[in-house]
């Protein structure tokens, strides 16, 4: 009889345990799928195209004053990506020489990209991350692959993840499958291709847009083999890329032709533009550019005509408007995309990435405007991903409560049964021995 009870208790306990386990597993599964779905719906939202943060790596690989135009090329891109919303903390700017404060520069602290000097690209708010002798091939590859020394500051690191869209722009003197750095060493097309592959393996990007302005530039992207890369270059194999114009006061050529027309087109793009990459590529005209720009899209899974220019050039954050009174979970979030603004006077305190310790843009924002924005709009970065998940958590609340209660009861019961079982057998066994 005793053994009977014991058996029953054991059976009951194991049944309870199994039930409990099944419940837990089910719940975890359900949660996982719910979260995954929420995350998917959030990241896959129309405005973000699967990326939550934008980065830009802008490289001017040429040294010396007569290569002023290459500095201007990179700085023109810097101005554009900054204007379209990528904060300084997400821009890695590499300038191999100091053109702005060069003793030969008649206009100190400026770099111009057009004859007549209408627009100063250097401005009064610029952060050059790698400059002078720091712009080397090893440093560039280390930057891309993240293999930097532990002491390297955050401003010199590409802190991307698998949700990062990266715009890589390079300019300098090059040739068939190579680009010169500082007139001293070369980076080959294979080096960049391998670095990108390593980045892909280490989940350091979601998509890359690679642009290069140099002689025979299209050969530089010919060796890419990693997925999700869209590439464009200024000239074909055997073709030179020429400078666009000179400024007689500056005394040298001030911008390259290809970059000039690219920047001219990008000036028409603003943060909310729906212009696509195919619009952008269709704008290429070999006659004024004086070379044949190329595009490589075979590694890029999305249709180019559905890929927005701002997916790479802009830092676009997901912003949800929520009523003040309603609970965050219940209200249907209205998704609009608001570009991150880095201009000092209209700064919305959104951080696309975790704030950089040294030079976060947030510090630049005026607290008054920040508060004003936050009072009626809950602004959050797409990277946080709370808003999208919020709704699913809300709907899952009731189920959560019920199953939680059940789990508690079953847990309590099974613990009691197991306790009884452990306490019982000793006495029974002793008697059996007697």
């Amino acid at each position: 009889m005793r053994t009977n009870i014991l058996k029953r208790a054991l059976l009951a306990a194991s049944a309870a345990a199994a039930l409990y386990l099944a419940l837990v597993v089910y719940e975890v599964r359900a949660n996982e799928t719910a979260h995954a779905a929420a995350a998917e719906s959030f990241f896959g939202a129309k405005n973000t195209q699967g990326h939550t943060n934008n980065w830009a790596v802008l490289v001017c690989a040429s040294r010396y004053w007569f290569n002023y135009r290459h500095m201007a090329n990179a700085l023109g891109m810097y101005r554009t990506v900054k204007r379209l919303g990528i904060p300084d903390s997400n821009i890695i700017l590499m300038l191999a020489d100091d053109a702005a404060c060069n003793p030969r520069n008649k206009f100190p602290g400026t770099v111009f990209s057009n004859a007549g000097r209408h627009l100063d690209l250097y401005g009064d708010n610029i952060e050059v991350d790698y400059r002078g002798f720091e712009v080397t091939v090893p440093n560039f590859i280390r930057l891309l692959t993240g293999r930097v020394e532990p002491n390297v500051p955050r401003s010199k690191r590409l802190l991307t993840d698998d949700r990062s869209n990266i715009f890589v722009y390079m300019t300098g003197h090059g040739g068939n499958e190579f680009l010169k750095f500082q007139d001293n060493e070369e980076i080959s097309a294979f080096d960049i291709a391998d670095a990108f592959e390593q980045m892909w393996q280490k989940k350091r990007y979601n998509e890359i847009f690679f642009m290069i302005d140099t002689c025979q530039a299209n050969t530089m992207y010919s060796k890419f083999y990693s997925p999700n890369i869209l590439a464009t270059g200024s000239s074909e194999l055997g073709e030179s890329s020429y400078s666009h114009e000179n400024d007689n006061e500056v005394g040298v050529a001030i911008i390259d032709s290809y970059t000039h027309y690219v920047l001219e087109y990008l000036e028409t793009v603003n943060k909310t533009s729906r212009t696509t990459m195919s619009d952008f590529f269709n704008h290429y005209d070999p006659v004024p550019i004086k070379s044949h720009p190329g595009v490589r899209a075979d590694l890029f899974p999305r249709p180019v005509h559905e890929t927005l220019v701002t997916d790479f050039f802009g830092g676009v954050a997901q912003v949800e408007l929520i009523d003040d009174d309603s609970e965050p979970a219940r209200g249907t979030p209205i998704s609009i995309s608001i570009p991150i603004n880095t201009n000092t006077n209209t700064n919305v305190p959104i951080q696309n990435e975790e704030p950089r310790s040294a030079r976060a843009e947030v510090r630049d924002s005026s607290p008054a405007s920040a508060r004003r924005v936050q009072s009626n709009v809950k602004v959050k970065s797409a990277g946080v991903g709370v808003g999208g998940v919020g709704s699913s958590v809300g709907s899952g609340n009731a189920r959560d409560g019920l199953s939680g209660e059940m789990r508690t009861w079953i847990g309590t019961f099974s613990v009691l049964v197991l306790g009884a079982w452990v306490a019982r057998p000793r006495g029974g066994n002793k008697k059996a021995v007697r």
Partner: protein
Amino acid sequence: MVAVEWCFRLTSVALLHGLLRAASAAPVLEEEFYENLKLTPLPDGRLLTRFDFKTLLRDAAPRAPHTLAEEDEPQHYNLFPLALGQLLREHAVTELHLTLNAGQWNYAAWGQPEDSGVATGAELWAWMGESRAISVKDRWKGITNGLAGLFCATLGGLDVRRTVSPSVAFQPEGDIPSSTPHHLLYAPLPSESVCTENLTPFLKLLPCKSRSGVASLLNPHRLFDADWHGMGVHVTWEEGLGVMVRMNFVAVYNPTRLMGLQNKRDWSFRLLFDRSITRACPVATRSAIHVALPSEGNFRLEPTAHSNLGNIAIFDVSKVQEPLELSMKWPDESEFDHTSFAPSLSPPLTVRRVLTGAGQSQGALAVSLSNTNTETMRVAWVETMPWFIKFYLHTLEATIKGERRNDLVKLVTYAPTSSSSQAPTLLESHVTIPGNTTLRLTIDLEKSFISYTQHPPAAQRGWDLPGGIIAFTSHSSHRGEKEKELREQRIYTPILLVDLPTPDFSMPYNVIIMTSTLVTLLFGTIFNMLTRKFVWIKLHE
């Protein structure tokens, strides 16, 4: 079950309470911010402008190095630059000085600068206490890289190949805690350029940025047009006062150049900075503009100063209601003639330093020190050279008018370089210069043949060598309080450019091609000879 839950809740509440208490225990320190702009017309028609921003963290103390292994106490700053504060706490730095200058300070025309640190390029020196947790060297590496990131400068290059620990010429400006032994680390980087990207982070460390107060005049396009310009960040600790961050920007303008064809020394804020002060920085405890009035000449300063202190006109920026636009005019002067002004600021000591000798391997360094006073001067002479410059100490010679006077030089330190460690050479000595004489010091040196991978990208340009440092250790006519002031004065000589033998950088490729060809030829022949069998073949006829 319920009891367990309550227990858990209570524990968590207790934990939270404890955490909150710990957080509130961190003292909220009083902070003060002072800003000052000083304009000094110089005898040669130039104008010295000096922006000074002081942030005082009252009663704060630098982090004790022995706590480096533990979690740091939470810090809360309102005005104190956070990014810099974090760096200082992280590496437990007691005193730190960073200067970034462009151009050579003209001691003869502009006199001794208020801050001695006017070395061309970048210069960084810091006092750090010993710690068992993290060595001073490792923290130096952290601080150089951290500052490189903070100020967009290539300070990351200030590694062991640049860093020395001089024992003379550098004295702490503040106090050093006596509880831990401190080390001074010093590194010059003469090739560093200064531009807008350095000023941008500088301005971001100020509580009012460049939006209001004196700092609103810091217009990069105008500042970098100045004949000489430089910025400095100085962190000091004074017992009983607190931690002070002094940030300054100094620019020597040439109004006669800016005025174009007029060639006058009149200046105004519009001319110098292309800006005016529209509003005061609200968090500044004191915000003032000082204009040093020239002792002679008929000049007009507009608007009228709020107060005068001796020959200094003082403007209180906080009282400003309408845009403040200072100007100074010399109405009687149709043209500035700098030859009519005697160089009244000529320093007691002038230094010249050149690299002599032809050829790419041997050379000599010659330093001539001229004492313009009648009294004997004792100075400290510090030379630090990168590892590829080797001094021959036995050739160190002091001469006065061709006569050998080696008794006037007393060697303090000589740390020779070694090509394996790539540590720089440090030569320190005390030099006595008799009154009204010129002492000439020469030392032979060897320029090493460095490996082709060690050359910088623009190798043909040569290497910038840091300037020599002459420090006033004492002055016979001054005693007591003044003596300390004089000790801190340093004179930097112009930097030098050394031409090292540069290899043909395409040589490795030639060598590879040549070697491969030779190997192919030799191996091919031998392989053929060994494996082939030469036999007679009878052809069927």
